[in-house]
C-alpha cells in the first residue's frame, strides 16, 4: 500500500459517501418546495404537514451531505496537489464558481427556511425552498462540468507543463458535461422519488396518515415516472458520446476485446486481462454493441486489444458496475409504470407497496455503480488522455494518508449510521399530529 493507492481509496470512498446524501438533497428539495407551494396555493393543512415531515428528513440528510462535501474541496489540494497545480486554471475556476454562485445561496437560504417560518410570509417562505432547490442543482451543474472536463478536456492548451484555459465557453458547453448533468439530476430525482414512495408505502401498509402518504406517494410517482424514463433515455445518449470520446471506457464497460464491425454485446462476462479475452462470455448478441454505440450495426467498435495496455481501465469493475446500473435502470421505469396503474388503489396493492418500500436502497446502489463506472472507467487517466492518476498525487507520507483514511472510515461510518438511523426513525414516526406551528 502506497500513498497513491491510499489516496485513491480515500478519494473514492469519501466521494461515494458524499454521494449517498447528495441525490436526495437535489431531488427532495424540489419535491418539498412543490409541496409547500401547494400549501400556499390551496391553504390545505395537509400540504403543510407534508412539507414539514419530508422537510425534517431532508434536513438530516442535508446536514451530512454538506459536511462531507467540504472534504472533497480540501482533498483536491491535500491528496492530489499534482493534479491541482496542473489543472487549477480550468478545474479550480469551476469549483470557485460553484461556491460563489451556488453554495452561498443554498447554505444561506436553508438557514432562512429552517428558522424563518414565522418571520416570512407563506409565499416568501416557499420561495426560499425553491431557492435552496435551485441552488443545489446549480451547484451540481458546476461540479459535474468540472468532472466532465476531466473526462473530456476541452477549451484549453498546454503551457509550461500546465493546462491553461483558452475558452471558458467551450468548457461550459462541453457536450460531456450536458449529458452528465442531465443523467445525474435525473438519477437524483429518481432516488428521491423512491425515497418518498418507499416511506409513504410503509405508512400506507400500516394504514396510518393515509391522506398525507397517498398524496406523497403520488407526487413521488409523477417525479419518479418522468425521471426513470428520462434517465434511461439520456443514459443512452451518454453512452453513445462515451463511445466517441472515451473508447477505452466503452471497450472496458462492455468487455469488448476485438475491434470489429457488428460488435456483439455480452450480457455477462468475466474478463481475463492477461490473455486479452473473456474467460466467460454469456448471452452474446452480435451487432448490438455497434448499434448501441453508433446506431449502426455495421459500425466499428474499438476493442481493448487496440488500446495500449497501460491505457486500459480495470475491465471487471468497469464492466460489472455498468451492468448493475443498467439492470437497475431498466427495473426502475417498470416499477413506476406499475405504480401509475395502481395509483388510485394503492391500499389494495400491499405487495406493490412492500416492493416499493424495500426498493429504497436500489437507486442508491445504481447511482454508486454509475459513478464507479464513470471514474474507474476513466483510469489510468485523471484527465482523460492528458494526465495519469499516478502522476497527480501529493508528496505526503503513506502514514499520513493511512491515518486520515482510517479516520474517515471511523467518522463517516458513525455519521452514516447515525444519519440513516435518524432518517429511518423519523420517517417511521410520521408527521406531527397537532396542527403545524
Amino acid at each position: 500500500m502506497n500513498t497513491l493507492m491510499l489516496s485513491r481509496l480515500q478519494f473514492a470512498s469519501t466521494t461515494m459517501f458524499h454521494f449517498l446524501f447528495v441525490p436526495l438533497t437535489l431531488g427532495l428539495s424540489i419535491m418539498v418546495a412543490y409541496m409547500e407551494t401547494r400549501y400556499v396555493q390551496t391553504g390545505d393543512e395537509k400540504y403543510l404537514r407534508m412539507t414539514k415531515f419530508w422537510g425534517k428528513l431532508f434536513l438530516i440528510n442535508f446536514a451530512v451531505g454538506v459536511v462531507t462535501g467540504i472534504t472533497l474541496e480540501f482533498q483536491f489540494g491535500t491528496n492530489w496537489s499534482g493534479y491541482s497545480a496542473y489543472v487549477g486554471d480550468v478545474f479550480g475556476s469551476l469549483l470557485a464558481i460553484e461556491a460563489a454562485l451556488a453554495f452561498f445561496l443554498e447554505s444561506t437560504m436553508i438557514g432562512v427556511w429552517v428558522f424563518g417560518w414565522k418571520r416570512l410570509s407563506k409565499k416568501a417562505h416557499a420561495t426560499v425552498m425553491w431557492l435552496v432547490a435551485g441552488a443545489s442543482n446549480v451547484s451540481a451543474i458546476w461540479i459535474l462540468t468540472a468532472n466532465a472536463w476531466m473526462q473530456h478536456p476541452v477549451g484549453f492548451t498546454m503551457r509550461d507543463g500546465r493546462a491553461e484555459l483558452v475558452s471558458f465557453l467551450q468548457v461550459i458547453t462541453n457536450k460531456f458535461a450536458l449529458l452528465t448533468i442531465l443523467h445525474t439530476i435525473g438519477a437524483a430525482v429518481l432516488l428521491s422519488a423512491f425515497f418518498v414512495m418507499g416511506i409513504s408505502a410503509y405508512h400506507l401498509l400500516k394504514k396510518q396518515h393515509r391522506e398525507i402518504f397517498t398524496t406523497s406517494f403520488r407526487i413521488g410517482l409523477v417525479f419518479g415516472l418522468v425521471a426513470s424514463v428520462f434517465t434511461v433515455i439520456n443514459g443512452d445518449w451518454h453512452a453513445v458520446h462515451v463511445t466517441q470520446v472515451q473508447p477505452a471506457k466503452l471497450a472496458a464497460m462492455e468487455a469488448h476485446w476485438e475491434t470489429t464491425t457488428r460488435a456483439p454485446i455480452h450480457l455477462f462476462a468475466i474478463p481475463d486481462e492477461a490473455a486479452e479475452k473473456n474467460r466467460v462470455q454469456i448471452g452474446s448478441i452480435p451487432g448490438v454493441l455497434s448499434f448501441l454505440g453508433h446506431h449502426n450495426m455495421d459500425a466499428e467498435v474499438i476493442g481493448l486489444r487496440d488500446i495500449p495496455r497501460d491505457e486500459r481501465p480495470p475491465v471487471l469493475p468497469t464492466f460489472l458496475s455498468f451492468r448493475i446500473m443498467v439492470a437497475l435502470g431498466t427495473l426502475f421505469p417498470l416499477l413506476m409504470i406499475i405504480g401509475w396503474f395502481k395509483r388510485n388503489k394503492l391500499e389494495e396493492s400491499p405487495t406493490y407497496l412492500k416492493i416499493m418500500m424495500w426498493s429504497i436502497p436500489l437507486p442508491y446502489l445504481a447511482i454508486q455503480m454509475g459513478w464507479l463506472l464513470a471514474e474507474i472507467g476513466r483510469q489510468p487517466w485523471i484527465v482523460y488522455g492528458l494526465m495519469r492518476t499516478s502522476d497527480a498525487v501529493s508528496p505526503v507520507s503513506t502514514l499520513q494518508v493511512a491515518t486520515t483514511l482510517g479516520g474517515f472510515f471511523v467518522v463517516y461510518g458513525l455519521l452514516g449510521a447515525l444519519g440513516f438511523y435518524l432518517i429511518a426513525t423519523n420517517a417511521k414516526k410520521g408527521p406531527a399530529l397537532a396542527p403545524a406551528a
Partner: protein
Amino acid sequence: MDLQVTWFFLWGLLWAVFFMTDGFDFGVGALYPFLAKSERDKRVMINSLGPMWDGNEVWLLTAGGVTFAAFPKVYAVMFSSLYSALMLLLFALIIRGVSFEFRGKIDDPRWTKLWDGCIFICSALPAILFGVAFANIFKGIPIDAQGIYHGNLLTLLNPYGLLGGVLFLMLFLVHGALWLANKTDGDLQKRAVAAAGKLWPVLLVVAVAFLAASKFATGLYDNYIAHPALFLVIAATVAALLATRLLMARGDYFKAFLASATTIGGATFYGVIGLFPNMLPSTIRPYFSLTAYNASSSPLTLKIMLTVVVLFIPLVIGYQLWAYRLFWGKVTDEDLSGDYAY
C-alpha cells in the same frame, strides 16, 4: 490594476470575511460549556447561530476555491504541506456541522452530552488551527524548489504558530461573546458581557505580543517600513480593538460587535499586506517562495473569475446581510419552540 495584485487582495478579503463571520460561530461554540448553565441556555446559544453558521462557513469554501482557481500552485502546495493540520480542521468542521442538527434528535442526556462536547471541541479546535496555519503562512514554511514540504504537523506548532493559534482563539471568543450579548437576554446575556469583558484584556495582551513577535519571526513589517502609510492599517485595527472595549463599557453591544468584526478583518489584512507579494514564503530559500506572480493562473482565468466575483459576491453579501437583518434580535422562547429549532 494588475490582475494578480487584484486577486491577491480579493483572496485576502475572502479570508477576512470568513473570519469575521464564522469566527463568531467558533467563538460561541468555544464558550458553550462556560456560559450555558441550563438546557435552555445551550439551546439559545446554538439557535443564535442556527440561521447563519452554514452560510458563514461557505466563505471558507470560497476562499479555498479561489485559492485553487487563482493561485493553483499555492492551493496545491499549501493544502498538501499543511495536510495533517487541514485534515484535523476538516474533521472538526464535519463533526461541528452535524452536531447542531443531530443534538436535539434523541431525547437522551447521554446523546445530548456527546454532541455538546463535540460542539465545544469542534469550535475551539478550528479557531486554534486557523491561527496556527496563518501564523505559519506569515512566517513561512520549509518548502523546496518543487514545493515539497520538509516538515510535519509539529513543525507548525512552533512558538509563533502557537501564538497565532491563541490570538485567533481570543479574537473569536470575544467576537462570539459579543454576538451573544446581542442575541441573548437575562442572565445568559449578563454572563456573555462579563466574559467579553474578562477576555478582552487577554486578547489585547496576546495581540500586542503577536505584533511584536511578528517583527522577529516574520518579514511582515518589510512592506510597512517600505510604505509607512500602510501602518495606518495596523493603527486602524488597534483602534477597532480599543473601540470594542469602549463600546462594550457603554453597553452598545451592536457597535462593539461591529468593532470586533473590524478588528478581525483588520488583523487578517495586517498579515495579508505584510505578506505581499508572497503567498507561501519558503524558509529554506526566499526564492522558493510562492508569490502572487509565480503561482497564479493564466490571465484569462483571472479575468473570468474576476467577472464572476464582481458580479456575484456583492449579491451574496446583500442576501447574507438581509438574512442577518431578518433574524436580528434576541432568541426567544417562540424561536426555541419552532419545529426545526436546534
